[in-house]
């Protein structure tokens, strides 16, 4: 558990880095959205990591079983919300990308930027 305790957080940090990098460095708008999704997922992982209790189980109370240890329900609730928020953002972002493609004929950031430069 010790090792895993670190490992989860490290993976969280690494995923965050990968996603963040894709958002900043990639020019393709869809790639940016994918990066954003990874970026957000990393945070979900962090929250869910902290909800775990050793020897615990999902916080659904079973009839007739006593002395069960439950993991923390609260981060789960938060992340349920956050996942839906993430999907919503992605969907809206994609809609905008589709419109950009229709008006600019490209989904590469630098090409769009160049298209609007005064000639």
């Amino acid at each position, binding site marked *: 558990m010790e090792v895993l305790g670190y490992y989860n957080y490290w993976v969280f940090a690494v995923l965050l880095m990968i996603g963040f990098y894709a958002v900043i460095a990639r020019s393709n708008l869809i790639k940016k959205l994918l990066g*954003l999704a990874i970026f957000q997922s990393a945070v979900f992982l*962090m929250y869910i990591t*902290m909800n775990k209790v050793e020897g615990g189980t999902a916080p659904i109370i079973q009839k007739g079983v006593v002395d069960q240890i439950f993991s923390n329900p609260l981060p789960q609730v938060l992340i349920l919300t956050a996942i839906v928020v993430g999907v919503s953002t992605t969907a809206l972002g994609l809609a905008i990308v589709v419109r950009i493609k229709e008006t600019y004929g490209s989904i590469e950031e630098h090409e769009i930027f160049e298209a609007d430069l005064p000639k």
Partner: protein
Amino acid sequence: MNFSEHLPALQVVVPLLSAPLIVLLRSNGLAWAAATATSLMAFAIAVAITLGVLDGQTFPYSMGGWPAPYGIALGVDSFSAILLLIVSGASSFALLGGRPSLNSQIEAHRQPLFYAAWMLALAGLSGIVVTADAFNIFVFMEISSLASYVLIAGGPDRRALPSVFKYLVMGTIGATFYLIGIGLVYMMTGTLNLADMEVRIQGVADQSPILVAAGFITIGLALKAAVFPLHAWLPNAYTYAPHMVTVFLAACATKVSLYVLLRFDFFVFQQNLAGHAFQFATFLMPLAVLAVVVASAYALFERNLKRLLAFSSVAQIGYILLGASLVSTAGLTASGLHVFNHALAKGTLFLAVACLAMRFSSLHLQDLSGAAKSMPLTMAAFCIAGLSLIGVPGTAGFISKWYLIGAALNEGALGIGLAVIIVLSSLMAVVYIWRVVEAAYFHTPNTSAVNIKEAPRELLIITLLAALANIYFGVNSAVPVALASDAANLLMGHLQ
């Protein structure tokens, strides 16, 4: 429970519930009417809350009847009252007068969706302000952000699309940073309620995660608030948004994020982190100064009227931060006042821009030559609001500049330097407002612009009303000053 106890919940729920109802309306006229009525209702609620707050009420509210920290609590104080007033006020003004402008920019069949998104933005911003729960702030921040993206994407210029995409990406990064920060604090305290956090952080032995959390929350919110140099999304988003959306968002959107930032830093972190006041000041003050100077300089050279004003907004956010970064009652009073007064000034300016845009096809300064000849009332309103932005006495903008310089001068030698910078940037504001005035008043009109009439009546009336508000609050500032100084005392009260 009697009705007045429900006010903070109603502030959010009324516009929130109206959004799906408006979606179901098929007629755009009805949609507009419903949105306007809702917005006015929200404004009335905000006024009622403000009156209560001035009376010393705090409006505690437990959502679902569950006590904090188990349930979600709401609460309102003077600081929130300022924000509620400008959020619902800006929305009401923009909707009341904005129909002609919106009709010219948004196709009829898209309007019900547009007004629904507007209501969601209104509800989201109000929701952020009234809540006392860290995660709930995130949820409503996302409602308001998504809705704002939609509103801005309504801009008829194709450049609205890349602008809004940039806003979406940067906004989401900001929100996610905030979420990381909340996660770290939650990890160390086990609570999401702000007041409870404040108490429990004191018991945390190891502060490094809290410190990192403070950093993430500050940066995330700074992104949302367009604090220099994280303002990259703002100028284009404001420029290419529909004019009425710019009126609404420029008046209040970034300020709500600043509000959360200040709440967090003062309520949750300041007294609990060793030297946080110092870190807060040393981190934000240079940014604030840079924002004030650099963004004003950008505005000096900008030729598109809306972009010019957008850059000015970045500079004005710098003023608000500058006041806060002094970490003193006087400084925070100045910040609170500037939140209010800048909303007035910038809202009016963008309303005047909307008036101009009704009659001029382009908002480049050279295309607005002689606008004052054909639209004297609009330009008069623009001038008054411009003076307010500069901070000329007799207008609302002066009040906050007055307090800001006063607060700066309390700080000794550093303060004198800050005061000089404030004065210099006010002069820069004189110049960039002057360039507009000069084009409008003293350049000969283009031949195509000779037969231009004043803006449509309702838009014009609202614009003039807003301009008068600038003067009224410049002469009688008792209410905003009372709210702001009370807010400052509250924030500083948590420092002891």
